[in-house]
């Protein structure tokens, strides 16, 4: 299925669901405009979309979903999703203020995604790549067994095909509802990266708003090249946890992409509009001369 078909399918599903469940109200009309979290400007949805979901006034980068990200990064119609049908289980029968199973259903409904990561093979300016994109909207982009397994399989696929692997992260950390099984996904994905290293397969990570905890402490920061998106907050421990521990206020730029650059943790920080061309350059520079796909 092509990228476009895939999106169309999802959009239609969404659309149908919307039609069944609601009528157009004043609220819906408001949704045609979006307010910038940073500068408070109201921006027409359309314009925001054309501007890659970046505020045209202040450059604030809106959080975007896996779908938008793939559309922005990949050549048109080049995406073939893999392991799209993998679904989360509930091995611990976990209940907090809500059943884990219920959370899964809700997240699926809300995002139209089966889990917090979409993986597949696509092309960036004709270079074939294995790409994973996380979606924060699905349970905070948390990593449970499915995310870990899909990331691992994607890396394995990249190694098999000898093509660059790109992981775009957005995650609050490990999925607590799967407890230690989630923790082990950190080991599993990192072991996969170890294999990519040994096979000299280029692995690039793109850290986007927000990337924390178990993802920062595993495949997220293991890129041969690590790119952070402008303004993204990235860290191991959450701001609140740190404030509680050290009982002092944190600097306002703490854990921003720019802060991480200053402290030596990311190779570069990019505006969303420069990401695709940067990836293309990196792939070209690191590729043996004849790796480019014939177009």
């Amino acid at each position: 299925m092509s990228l476009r078909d895939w999106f169309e399918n999802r959009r239609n599903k969404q659309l149908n669901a919307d039609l069944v469940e609601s009528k157009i109200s004043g609220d819906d009309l408001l949704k045609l405009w979006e307010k910038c979290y940073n500068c408070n400007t109201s921006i027409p949805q359309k314009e925001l979309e054309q501007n890659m979901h970046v505020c045209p006034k202040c450059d604030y980068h809106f959080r975007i979903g896996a779908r938008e990200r793939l559309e922005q990064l990949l050549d048109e119609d080049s995406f073939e999703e893999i392991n799209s049908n993998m679904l989360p289980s509930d091995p611990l029968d976990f209940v907090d203020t809500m059943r884990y199973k219920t959370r899964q259903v809700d997240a699926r409904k809300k995002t139209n995604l089966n889990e917090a990561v979409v993986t597949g093979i696509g092309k960036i300016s004709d270079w074939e790549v294995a790409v994973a994109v996380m979606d924060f909207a699905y349970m905070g982009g948390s990593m449970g067994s499915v995310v870990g397994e899909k990331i691992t399989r994607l890396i394995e696929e990249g190694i098999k095909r000898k093509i660059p692997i790109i992981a775009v992260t957005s995650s609050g950390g490990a999925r607590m509802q799967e407890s230690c099984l989630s923790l082990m996904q950190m080991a599993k994905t990192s072991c996969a990266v170890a294999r990519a290293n040994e096979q000299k397969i280029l692995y690039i990570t793109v850290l986007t708003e927000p990337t924390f905890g178990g993802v920062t402490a595993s495949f997220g920061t293991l890129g041969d090249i690590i790119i952070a998106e402008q303004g993204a907050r990235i860290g191991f421990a959450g701001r609140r946890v740190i404030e509680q521990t050290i009982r002092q206020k944190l600097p306002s730029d703490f854990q921003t992409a720019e802060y991480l650059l200053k402290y030596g943790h990311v190779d570069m920080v990019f505006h969303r509009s420069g990401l695709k061309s940067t990836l293309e350059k990196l792939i070209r520079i690191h590729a043996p001369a004849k790796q480019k796909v014939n177009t």
Partner: protein
Amino acid sequence: MNKQFTPLEFEKSIYQIEDKIEELKKLSSETGINLDDQVKLLTNQAFEFKKQLYSSLTPSQKLQIARHAKRPTFLDYVSLITTDWLELHGDRAGTDDRAIIGGVAQIDGKSVMLIGTQKGRTTKENIEYNFGMPQPEGYRKALRLFYHADRFNLPIITLIDTPGAYPGIKAEQTGQGTAIAVNLREMAKLETPIVSVILGEGCSGGALGLAVSNRVYMFEHSLYTVISPEGCASILWRSADMASTAAENLKITSDDLLQMEIIDGIIKEPLGGAHYDWDFAAAELKNTVLESIDEMSGMSGTELKSDRHEKFRRMGVFIE
């Protein structure tokens, strides 16, 4: 079991029975009345009761044992099971994090690299060891020692007891996430056997950063979890008071982890917990790691690596 410790809440009834036994003995010796049968009966009952109590502890109760102030620490075990221990200090880049300690030694004449998180007992020790919460530099010291062990074919034993990697400003600045991630990846590349044991608390990436190992064991009353029950409670229930509920739901006991096939075995503790008999716990630990290393002695570097990869590759439960 001696009454050397302040009883934990759930141990109070045991201590009461034992007080009663003492009273009977005293009465007997003071009055000359023979109460041997009664004492014996009560002692047996107490023993049965204890056995049952300690084998059916709730996760929260285990947590109390795992965090017991007198529970043997990494350095206690080192002194109990090794000879010729030589601590190797520093990350070679500006820090000797004391929350992670490593060094070489011999166990029954076999050379090994031992690395572990260290907790303190006194205030001074707690400050020195930062309550067993490593900074990124601690993980980098460990990594340096992993590479050293790899070069000289020293089996690596990591002993883990940590509430987690330290969450602080400097830790973020020097890369707590990256330091742990790099350890996960680099441990996967080592060509020497790695055996890990969770001694007490094994919390989150802070524990895993030393545990991408061929064999992972847990002490009977230790715990291994993606997040501390308190942290989980305050996030999911928005109340730290729900910690014991979180502890239940997280399935963090050694039995749970064995059932999930995340660990390879459980190391028995003396009745009541390791703090009641350090020598017993140390002997069990020593046997387990030596046997484990012995099992792997015939494996090549490549096989050891594959073994580790396959171990973690299997982990995870999902539907497709």
